[in-house]
């Protein structure tokens, strides 16, 4: 019986060790809050490790105290024959002192946490007003992200979707707006999350210190396709970013081949034009993502599919089997029309 319990305890110990190992390993990842790539996420991750270590020590200490208490176990099978203990006052005083000091330590730890977290919080928000880098307006829709780059020069304002390019080392301010229901903008490698709430304006800033791509995802339950409402943040050196930005502000490329021309015709005469816009063409609806430079993006369908020809074709024909419930209808295009449309869309660099 006793042996059984010790074996069980040993198994349990192994299990905890395994869990701890899992916890400490796998710190890489493109969507990982403890793999920071910017000052915000960095200070948060340091805060996390601090709290993790302190809490682990607390947990282990309490568990040791509890296990030591188990030494008091009796093998007496009968309850009634174990006399009711009358605790000795001296021992009780010792215990009282122990409890009081434990509570004091708890209070001290809590104050420590409070101060640490308050100062970390201040560093995240305090200088928001002074950040004069890039300013982006982000609107959450069911189930994609509308990204609007702001600029004092109106000709530099442009709209894209689901992929945010930012220059490395520059603070980027986000103005968060809710388009329909509440969403939450979260790129764990760069910063914490903030909600996009209809009727309210929320702000957050973030900064990437090293180039790379970081995945973000909607973190507030927003309906059927909440699971597949993701986005990419591409952090790149300033000159690359400028080139990208320069390209994005242009209107779409005019189709060159016959097939592309036919594709544009298909786009403008079919369902597509009801929701999507392509700058430089009559298509100007704001219901779905802006497709002016769709071919320059790495993914489609809110970072669900890689932007390949096959995926694009599947998505256009039958998006409902990929993301059931999303707002893009099924389309009944003939094969040649579809191929031309794909040619056209893929030309929109």
């Amino acid at each position, binding site marked *: 019986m006793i042996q059984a319990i010790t074996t069980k305890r040993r198994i349990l110990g192994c299990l905890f060790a395994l869990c701890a190992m899992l916890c400490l390993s796998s710190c890489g990842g493109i969507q990982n809050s403890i793999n920071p790539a910017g000052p915000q996420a960095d200070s948060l991750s340091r805060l996390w490790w601090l709290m993790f270590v302190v809490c682990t020590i607390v947990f282990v200490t309490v568990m040791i105290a509890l296990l030591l208490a188990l030494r008091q176990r009796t093998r007496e099978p009968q309850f009634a024959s174990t006399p009711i203990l009358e605790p000795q006052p001296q021992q009780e005083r010792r215990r009282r002192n122990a409890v009081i000091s434990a509570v004091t330590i708890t209070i001290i730890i809590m104050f420590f946490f409070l101060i640490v977290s308050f100062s970390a919080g201040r560093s995240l928000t305090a200088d928001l007003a002074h950040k004069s880098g890039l300013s982006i307006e982000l609107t959450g829709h069911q189930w994609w992200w509308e990204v609007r780059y702001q600029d004092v020069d109106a000709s530099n304002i442009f709209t894209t979707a689901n992929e945010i390019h930012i220059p490395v080392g520059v603070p980027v301010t986000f103005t968060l707006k809710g388009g329909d229901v509440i969403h939450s903008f979260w790129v764990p490698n760069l910063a914490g999350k903030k*909600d996009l709430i209809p009727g309210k304006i929320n702000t957050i800033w973030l900064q990437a210190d090293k180039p790379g791509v970081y995945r973000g995802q909607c973190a507030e339950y927003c309906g059927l396709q909440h699971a597949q409402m993701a986005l990419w943040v591409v952090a790149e050196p300033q000159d690359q970013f400028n080139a990208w930005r320069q390209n994005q502000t242009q209107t779409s490329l005019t189709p060159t081949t016959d097939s592309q021309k036919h594709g544009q015709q298909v786009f403008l005469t079919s369902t597509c034009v009801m929701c999507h816009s392509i700058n430089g063409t009559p298509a100007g609806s704001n219901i779905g993502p802006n497709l002016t430079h769709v071919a320059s993006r790495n993914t489609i369908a809110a970072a669900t599919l890689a932007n390949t020809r096959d995926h694009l074709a599947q998505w256009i024909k039958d998006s409902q089997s990929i993301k059931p419930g999303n707002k893009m209808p099924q389309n009944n295009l003939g094969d040649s029309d579809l191929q031309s449309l794909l040619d056209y869309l893929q030309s929109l660099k």
Partner: protein
Amino acid sequence: MSYKEAQKIQKTTIDDQELAAAMERERKELERTWARPSGVTGWFIDTDHKSVAKRYIVTAFVFFIFGGIEAALMRLQLARPNNHFLSPDQYNQIFTVHGTTMMFLFAVPMMTAMGIYLVPLMIGARDVAFPRLNLYGYFVYLIGGILLYTGFLLNTGPDAGWFAYVPLAGPSYSPGKRVDIWAQMITFTEISALVGAVVIIGSVFKMRAPGMSINRLPLFVWAQVVTSFMIIFAMPAVMLASSFLASDRLIDTHFFNPAEGGDAILYQHLFWFFGHPEVYIIFIPALGFISPIVIAFSRRKIFGYLALVLSLISTGFIGFGLWVHHMFATPIPQMGQSFFTAASMMISIPSGVQIFCWIATLWGGKLHIKTPLLFVLGFFAIFIIGGLTGVMLASVPLDLQIHDTFFVVAHLHYVLIGGSVFPLFGAFYYWFPKWTGRMLSERVGHWNFWLMFVGFNLVFFPMHQLGLNGMPRRVYTYLPETGWATLNLIASIGAFILAAGVLVFIINVFWARRAGEVAGDNPWAADGLEWSTTSPPPNYNFHNIPVVQGRYPLWQATPDAPVVRGLSTTKRETLVTSVLDSQPELKFDIPGPSPWPFCVALATAVTFIAGIFTPWAFLVGAILAGIALTCWFFGDPNYENRTARETGERSQPVSPPRELQPKEV
């Protein structure tokens, strides 16, 4: 008059044999007076607190199993990336119904039920304060549960999450009647929780046995009182939230429509002003289970009774000051956030005090490691992890990273399963002998504990890591390149081990009811008053209401302990005592079985269920409820108890005997 005095008087006239015969006659009379109606009608009219509580417990456990099945389905869906086992529509309904079931149909009613069963036995009362109201509460709860599950089975399960944030749950984005069913089900559980709270507060304050002054109140009863007060203050907030939501959806009001001056954040404030205390409403009764178990199995008085009571009360107060930590990602000024961070961290202090006191008790005791204590030890291991992750979530900046991720899923299950369900199972093992007269098997109990403990940690520990790795909660699937597959698979395997643990428990219960060891009155040689009566207790709970001589009534009872004499045996009479000192004040008739609570519950059901479809329901329902309530109030309080009518007098004042007068401190 004390038992001793009674004996003294009787000794002058009759001998022992005659006394025994008189007692037996009295017992038979009590048996007849407090008889429970049987048969099918009995099911609708029986107001005995034990049978109502038993029904509550069984119903809540059935919902627990339903919720568990839903959890298993979700774990199957998430076991591998891009799984097509459930559609997003099904998954969203399932996780919403899972959360709603566990919070509203399992946890709160189960805790209320334990209180309704045990509180009168622990305070030495014959029944609860308002037995008919109590019965009404059960039926309302049952109807609410049936409503939710009927909807769910007919593809009308709510799908906006268990806290149903607007605008997603509002009229524009949740068409159909799904969320309406959720909102009305909330109304039903609100009513039943409020009713339960009133019943418990009434019983504890006015119906304690003489001598059980407020400083001798068992810790379980303290926990129930604190919980009941929390319910009374928290439930109105969710009543506002769900009624505003329902009226936005059904009659075009604009409480939450920002375009017409409403506010979507208002809903979150209202909901979490209830929602966070709700966590403590579930958790504090569980703390109440732990104290008696620790006392009984360490064979000593509790360490730091006063500290424990004050901790419970302060938890109840602070619990109302930290709702905003669910909303740190919304635009809230930093100063405001810091206040709620501080409050959220502060609440870990009373929790810490309690844990330290229990550990100190264990240190100074002689431990019998039986299944109930095993579950309490499991509570320590799991709950402390949950509490510490709670501290992390209280920190605003860190919360912004882990809020609404699987880290939160892990945290809330560590707190609610570790903090509530483990003590609850401990309590099942501890009080099962009292309820049925038979012991649950120890061997099977150990299996039960270890399966649940290992399974639980296997499901939920990896979720911390998943959350940090960026997995948001409430996603019906995920892409393989996110790297979440392995941990999710481990969690899914763990879910089935946990389920096996619960299954073992169910088997144990069915086995023990037929073949378990016969328990006797007090199998654990414990201290509480509930162990002084037979197992299972008679309908009238105690032949003679005991007089309490200390904080640990059975351990401190002298051999010639006094009892209360002079209560009528031919009508349902009980003693009303004062709030603080528990001095006898009145003799009072408790109402007996009645068909009207069920009728009022039906009228309530008509009002709120039909109200989903037409506003006329409120008119019809009001008339029906009016009729039923009139009959309830003017009906015979001693339904089915003809002999009671002969004595017309009611509510006689009593003068407390001298030894019960409060002494100078």
